[in-house]
């Protein structure tokens, strides 16, 4: 292993320092490596080393050598080297703190590269103990295509388990609650779609050349994963005192008015049809939809569907299950997890026998 580490570093240096591309024969002569074995086996060893270095971001280019049929290798210094990044000592400190707070794998090295030639970090104290958990691993699968603007093809599994082949211009990645999404233009549907990265059923495959598209100027990644809103449609709710805080947390504003039975009347600026229906159903009994009529009807149908499913004899439903029909307006046919309760670890007691010692 010691030998391999040194061989990979020295191969990098030899190719960086050579005045032009080198053939394998010339590399053998200059470095003394790849000489121990048959020509075929040493060639294979070199190819493996080359692939490993490329994987680390070392740009080894393959060219045809002039005046011969032979393949040559080179590392152009300008593609290898990271230009100096102008960062102040405070900025380096802030970045180092951010990397430490997330503890995300691989990020310390990326920061070390950026800050290798920048000032050492300033002293920095963050008042409150704060940590941010955000495993960014899922973005790896699409990173190259997103940054290189290259089209991707993959198999996608919808929430209902069905799979389909998709071809997408990958515009960007978004983290929302516990999930990572890829947002892009879906060629088969000719529309903007959000795909959960944990539902890719195949390794995404680049299709065509880099720089193949330009995202639309009005792209809003956050809106793409939150599902469509209907701005201009105000939601009016009658809310019990107990539930007032929960509605305010979701953007509800007190109108100062009272419903006929004395409950407070709160409004939401815009309607998110899927999301709003879900959390209002979850607050059963504490919140009543006064307007719009469509949401009021969907919430009523939702309760009817719950009753029909749990106690068929309890109510007569007219067959409308209240499910949004056809093409769900949520990200790519996924019902977005309704607000407030998602995959996040829940609530109150971290461990049944929580002893304060952090044993959970």
């Amino acid at each position, binding site marked *: 292993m010691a030998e391999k580490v040194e061989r990979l570093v020295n191969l990098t240096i030899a190719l960086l320092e050579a005045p032009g591309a080198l053939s394998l024969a010339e590399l053998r002569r200059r470095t003394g490596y790849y000489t121990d074995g048959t020509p075929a086996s040493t060639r294979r060893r070199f190819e493996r080393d080359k692939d*490993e270095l490329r994987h680390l*971001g070392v740009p080894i280019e393959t060219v045809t050598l002039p005046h011969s049929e032979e393949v040559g290798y080179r590392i152009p210094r300008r593609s290898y*080297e990271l230009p100096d*990044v102008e960062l102040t000592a405070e900025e380096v400190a802030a970045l180092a703190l951010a990397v430490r707070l997330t503890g995300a794998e691989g990020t310390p090295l990326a920061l070390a590269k950026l800050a290798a030639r920048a000032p050492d970090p300033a002293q920095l104290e963050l008042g*409150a103990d704060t940590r941010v958990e955000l495993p960014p691993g899922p973005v790896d699968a699409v*990173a190259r295509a997103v940054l290189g603007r290259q089209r991707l093809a993959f198999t996608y599994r919808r929430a209902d388990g069905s799979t389909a082949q998709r071809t997408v211009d990958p515009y960007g990645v978004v983290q929302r609650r*516990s999930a990572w999404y890829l947002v892009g233009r879906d060629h088969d549907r000719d529309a903007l779609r959000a795909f959960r990265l944990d539902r890719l059923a195949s390794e995404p495959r680049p299709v065509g050349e880099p720089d193949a598209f330009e995202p639309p100027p009005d792209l809003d990644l956050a809106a793409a994963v*939150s599902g469509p809103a209907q701005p201009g449609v105000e939601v009016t709710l009658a809310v019990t005192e107990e539930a007032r805080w929960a509605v305010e947390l979701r953007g509800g504003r007190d109108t100062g008015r009272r419903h006929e039975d004395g409950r407070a009347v709160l409004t939401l600026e815009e309607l998110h049809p899927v999301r709003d229906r879900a959390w209002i159903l979850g607050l059963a009994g504490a919140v009543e939809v006064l307007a719009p009529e469509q949401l009021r009807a969907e919430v009523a149908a939702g309760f009817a569907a719950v009753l029909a499913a749990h106690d068929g004899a309890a109510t007569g439903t007219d067959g409308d299950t209240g499910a949004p029909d056809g093409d769900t307006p949520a990200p790519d046919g996924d019902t977005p997890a309704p607000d*407030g309760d998602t995959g996040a670890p829940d609530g109150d007691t971290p461990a049944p026998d929580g002893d304060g010692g952090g044993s959970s």
Partner: protein
Amino acid sequence: MSAAQDVARMLTLVPWLLERPGASLAEAAAVFGVDEDTIRDDLGHLDFCGLPGLGGGALFEVTLVEDRVVLTMADELRRPVRPTAEEALRLVVSVDAVAEALGDELPALRSAVDRVRAALGIPERSADVLEPDGVAALPLLRRAVREGRRVELDYQGRGDERPATRHVDPWALHVVDGTWYLQGHDRSAQQRRVFRLDRVAAARLTDAAREVPPPADLPPPRYVPGPEDLAVTLELSPRGRWVEEAVTADEVVVHPDGSATLHLRTDAPTWVARLVLMAAGEAVVTAPEDLIATVVRLARAAV
């Protein structure tokens, strides 16, 4: 650690050391997120690296005195290799997440993010981390943790029908999966407790000092189902499969038509009942009977 990871680090360690003659092993270890022995091993390798050639070539010179390092003759690697696309995107989303969580508390981070994006060629709007939920009480709680002051929370736990007042010695704030949590010592429960900020109806800062200090090691909150919890079975239609992600399931059995049977345990049955209501008929409780009754009661009361 693989040889490739060692190589990736060493290609950056060289320019870092060239910029900092006399840097200590500890400083290098902290920057690269490894231990000092790893840096020592790296230096051992670098002693055999350089431009090969006749008569041994021109190798790097590594001098280690006590724990101070001087590296010379290594100008071939005077600048770091560019981060890969994966490293670049990971770094930017991680830093974005912290910037989103800390708000204006760390102004240098905002300007740093812009410079990093520009240096790495990360296009505008190619990565976004949405603001965690439950931020209303955040400024007050942050201040309480910083100043070590007790807080009063009107808190509605998962199993509660309405908020109740809790007296808490606050310890730390965590963002887990895009949601804010406060950890602290609950004075009435006399135990460590975790509070989801989007269940805090109101928070008040008191003048009392925090009495129970945070433990040295405070892991992020994780819900662990207990043996006393209620066992629940849910039938999910294909459209109701999102419910799986809202709970910690013991077992999920997926059927050929895309529907699923979900087994879970909970210490808060009413919370599960409300989750079932949210699914509007796409999730059905099949056991226990009591929970079915709760769902029906809540739905009846609402219509």
